[in-house]
């Protein structure tokens, strides 16, 4: 992040510094209190609640068969979704940056659609398309493929919701990349695929990883689309966030807290890794 640039952190010359302390202190404390109230306090409450029965109770909440099944399912699906996103996102970003075709600008604007459309609506849309009473859904289920209320539906919902992440991280890197090397490799006789693998891929790999981690974190916590599409069958379509919701509804607060803490720790560490990767990239850019 460019936030780290030192010359910007010493903003006002001494002459004016005296004139501003009130506003400066006001803003600083507004920031601290706002985040303290909205983020730190709720987090402390959930951590306290989850650990209120001691570590042993926390552990038994997690390894409870239904809870553990939900966790395993969520992680498995998140991995599948992330891998598909990495491949398709890279391909889409490449096509958008390197090729000219009619409708490219429109396509580019549509990429952000899943960020704008409510996730619950995404779920309703998928049911409208693949639901058992619909044409496509009926045709698929007559061929033995159940989408809605089954694992493929959950995968599909998460694929829609996380669609933009890899594309939006890879695109700017590809745009900035010089095409000289790529063309040189191609002229020297490397095939398109070899050029991509040896020249382009190493350049955009950090961006692919960043986008993939973001979509993984998002997939871990997604609720709105999944709750509509999944039948919430333990071990098959019950994901961890939906499990948490069920525990809240059935008044098992500690069980909900324990799973929440685990999910939070997972996705927050993923986001910290992304921040770290981006700040490293920022430094390299400054150095070069």
């Amino acid at each position, binding site marked *: 992040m*460019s*936030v780290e640039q030192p010359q*910007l*952190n010493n903003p*006002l010359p001494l002459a*004016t510094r005296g004139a*501003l302390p009130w*506003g400066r202190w006001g*803003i600083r404390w*507004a*920031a*601290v209190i706002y985040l303290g109230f909205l*983020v730190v*306090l*709720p987090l402390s409450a*959930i951590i306290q*609640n989850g650990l209120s029965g001691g570590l042993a109770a926390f552990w038994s909440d997690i390894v409870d068969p239904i809870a553990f099944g939900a966790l395993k399912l969520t992680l498995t699906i998140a991995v599948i979704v992330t891998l598909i996103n990495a491949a*398709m996102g890279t391909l*889409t970003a490449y*096509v958008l940056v390197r*090729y000219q075709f009619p409708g490219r600008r429109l*396509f580019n604007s549509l990429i*952000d*659609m*899943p960020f*704008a*459309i*409510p*996730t*619950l*609506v995404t779920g*309703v*849309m998928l049911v*409208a*398309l693949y639901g058992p009473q619909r044409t*496509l859904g009926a045709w698929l289920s007559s061929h033995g493929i159940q989408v809605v209320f089954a694992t493929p539906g959950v995968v599909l919902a998460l*694929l*829609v919701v996380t*669609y933009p992440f890899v594309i939006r991280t890879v695109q700017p890197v590809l745009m900035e990349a010089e095409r000289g090397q790529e063309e040189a490799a191609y002229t*020297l*006789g490397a*095939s398109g*695929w070899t050029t991509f693998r040896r020249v382009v891929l190493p350049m955009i790999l950090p961006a692919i990883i960043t986008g993939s981690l973001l979509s993984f974190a998002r997939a871990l*916590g997604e*609720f*709105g689309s999944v709750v509509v599409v999944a039948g919430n069958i333990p071990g098959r379509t019950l994901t*961890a*966030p939906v499990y*948490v*919701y069920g525990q*809240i509804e059935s008044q098992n*607060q500690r069980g909900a*807290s324990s799973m*929440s803490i685990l*999910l939070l720790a997972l*996705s*927050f560490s993923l*986001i*910290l890794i992304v*921040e770290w990767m981006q700040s490293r990239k920022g430094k390299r850019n400054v150095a070069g």
Partner: protein
Amino acid sequence: MSQAETTIHSRNAGGATIATSELSQSALSRGREAKPRKQRSRIKESILILVALLYAGGLLIAPLIAIVWGSLAEGAGAFAREITSTDAVSSFKLTLIMAATATVINTVFGLCIAWALVRDDFWGRRIINGLVDMPFAVSPVIAGFMLILLFGRGGWLTHLTEGIGLKVVFALPGILLATVFISLPFVIREVAPVLSQVSADQESAAHTMGASGWQTFWHVTLPAIRWGLLYGVSLTFARAVGEIGAVLVVSGGVSGLTETSTLFIYRSLDDRNYVGANAMSVVLAGVSFLILIVIEFFKKRAEDH
């Protein structure tokens, strides 16, 4: 896209019938192969474009068409009846009010936090920087649950709020808090980078010439960050309109009173009122499209400046 496909493409091209994937590895045969190769790469290009478009079409466009179709399944009359029902209208109003309020709150405090992150220097600034991302890491359900732990029965702050006669959980303040929480990072994350590009010199120059802090912000800082800010604001609003997980946990789901549009859809699905759920989904999708157009516009402006 592997060697196998390369071979298929070249067969389709009709130019080279030999195993071209091997040839393409060999630099020596390049000159002789120049022309078919160009043709081949054009075919490969079209296939890649087609794959990207089909994937996006299947994932994003097909469900969109299906839902419009589904909402009109019982005719345009049923659609109109559903979206003009008392519950639907009042839920839509509540959604707009909640999203607008949350956006205003997050814009004001987001500007403060972005300013503190970029211009100020104090102990704990880095911690603040990490905390800002927290709402992105928290599943919306968990966000709602945290509010229940704070303000629900026996919660940490329940005594305080009950003391002043304020009901938070299962009431509007809870919905607002949940919405504010999940849309918190957008303004900060869009404004901070733009703000750090704006030199502090201009601000201090205005200040030396006698402008008050407020005047400096209004006439110097704000014009410089406006597109980034508007981009962040529109993202905040879009996220606030579409929230379900946090709101579902916090609200009691009393229709007409604490029911937002997404909750209306959720309840309609539960009641097997699919036309109603589809109709409201179409309305929300339409609103999202409008917001998306605005977002794209501001984003382009923010990138140009």
